């Protein structure tokens, strides 16, 4: 039923195909990369795309195509990690504070408001400033920044759900709070969570790449797309392919995830169309 409706959405299918393709590249990057992405070869540095190096080489003579392939894995991993962590924490906080209410709810939601008082990205910058720049810390920073939005949406949905008769019926039959949350509330949240999560992956991929671009995420020599872009920046006048290629891949990946997200939203929640 779900698949039937989703299948009709052509652009979402296109997004799915592109995304799966990039995921395959990411998974099989060690097998399909023509060169070692970290091997420097100063004789062949700064080559434009040619038959040996399909996407040229960077300032250290590293093969761009191989670096792009490896970078796909890092980008996917970072995006998924952020969203999985943020969803786990955000959903738990949201469900519990929505269901229990009271003091717990007040404390959690005020803390979320507090986090939201910083513009998202500056919270991440602050966290990186404290923990020091690295890919792991960038992931932690973006995760913390993403938790409040999930917690708030989940909480407000839970508030609506917990008043429904079947929850009351379950309570009357003696179910514990934990059981009600786990068996009756969370399954009903799957739809909105999937939609939020998909859009969230696209956002967090951009955020992690942005932090890396600014030197606050992945550190050299990691083959991360944002970092590659910032390394290529110095050669934008002479070798523009170094900035164009990682950006094109990044945009296509984010675009494909956004297409899937739009398709999922139309399928799971037709009202929002």
């Amino acid at each position, binding site marked *: 039923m779900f698949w039937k409706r989703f299948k009709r959405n052509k652009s979402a299918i296109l997004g799915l195909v592109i995304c799966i393709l990039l995921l395959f590249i990411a998974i099989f990057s060690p097998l399909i990369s023509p060169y070692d992405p970290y091997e420097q070869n100063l004789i062949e540095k700064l080559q434009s795309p040619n038959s040996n190096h399909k996407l040229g080489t960077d300032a250290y003579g590293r093969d761009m195509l191989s670096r792009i392939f490896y970078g796909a894995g890092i980008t996917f991993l970072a995006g998924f990690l952020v969203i999985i962590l943020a969803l786990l924490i955000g959903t738990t906080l949201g469900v519990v504070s929505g269901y229990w209410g009271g003091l717990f709810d007040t404390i959690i939601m005020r803390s979320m408001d507090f986090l939201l008082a*910083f*513009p998202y990205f500056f919270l991440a910058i602050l966290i990186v400033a404290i923990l020091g720049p690295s890919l792991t810390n960038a992931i932690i920073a973006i995760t913390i920044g993403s938790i409040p939005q999930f917690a708030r949406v989940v909480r407000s949905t839970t508030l609506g759900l917990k008043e429904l008769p079947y929850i009351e019926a379950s309570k009357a039959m003696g179910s514990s709070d934990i059981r009600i949350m786990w068996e009756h509330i969370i399954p009903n949240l799957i739809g909105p969570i999937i939609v939020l999560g998909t859009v969230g992956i696209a956002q967090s991929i951009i955020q992690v790449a942005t932090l890396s671009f600014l030197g606050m995420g992945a550190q050299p020599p990691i083959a991360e797309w944002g970092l590659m872009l910032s390394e290529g920046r110095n050669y934008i006048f002479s070798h523009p392919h170094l900035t164009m290629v990682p*950006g094109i891949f*990044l945009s296509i990946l984010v*675009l494909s995830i*956004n297409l899937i997200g739009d398709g999922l939203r139309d399928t799971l929640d037709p009202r929002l169309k």
Partner: protein
Amino acid sequence: MNKKKKQFNFLFYVIKRLLMIVLLFFLISTAVFFMLSFTPGDPVILMLGLEASTEQVEELREELGLNDPLLVQYWNFMKDTFLKGDLGYSYRLRTPVINEIARTLPVSASLAILAIIVSSFIAIFLGTFSAIKQYSFLDEFTKVFVLAGVSMPSFWLGLMLILIFSVKLGLFPAGGWGGGWKYYVLPVLALATNPLAVTARLSRSTMLEVIRQDFIITCRAKGLHESSVIFKHALRNAAIPVYTLIGLRFGNLLTGAVVTETIFGIPGLGRLTISAVYSRDYVLIRGCILTIALIFAIINLIVDLTCPLLDPRTKPNY
């Protein structure tokens, strides 16, 4: 309710909100102070370099008040911030932080305001016309533009703008600041694209909803000209969510400002923050973050207060 009482309630509401901002600012200052005080690395050694003598280090530590217990430092910081509006001295630049912010904030603000204006107007135009003529060429164009706009990372967009308009076409400078309007064009474009895309999508979907409502049918039934139906009646309703979300988009815009200022070498608040993080200049980081949080809170307050002017139905809860 009589008019006087209404005005009084409004005043009370404004004061309440302002007090909330003060409280929030207090909490944020406290949190930022303690978070940054636990960071590793000695700012004095960062300032003087590793070859500084022990006496020099001690002297400067004493001068900066870093030998005081943490709570004394906290008290001094809060006293200076709240009573004197003094954010301390930058470790690296050796200037008052407030001066640095006063120097960079107008630059960022002018960029942000231009970007908000440009993006809101074009977005409402695109959103409105693609909703009126759903499935037309313009509508399809808007859809593609929106998807591209939200999918392109702003740093890449900025670099591509430089590549096309300054490297290839030589129309605008690739970076720098302070030479007239030409220096604004590319940064504003880079900054405005993402909010433009988000706003266009929002105003399109709102407009689609609005033009199906009963009051629009009434307008048409009483024989109003189509342009009057759209521009006088529908547009005003469709503009409300666009306006209320300006506050939210302003947060994204600040993110964009960091990136754009870095790429184009613009001496704004975003670049100041980044350079402070690079040089581990904690006093400067603290000052920048506090300023940004305060601006963010004030923008949201202004949007909330002015919203009833546009939409009398949305009364703030006073």
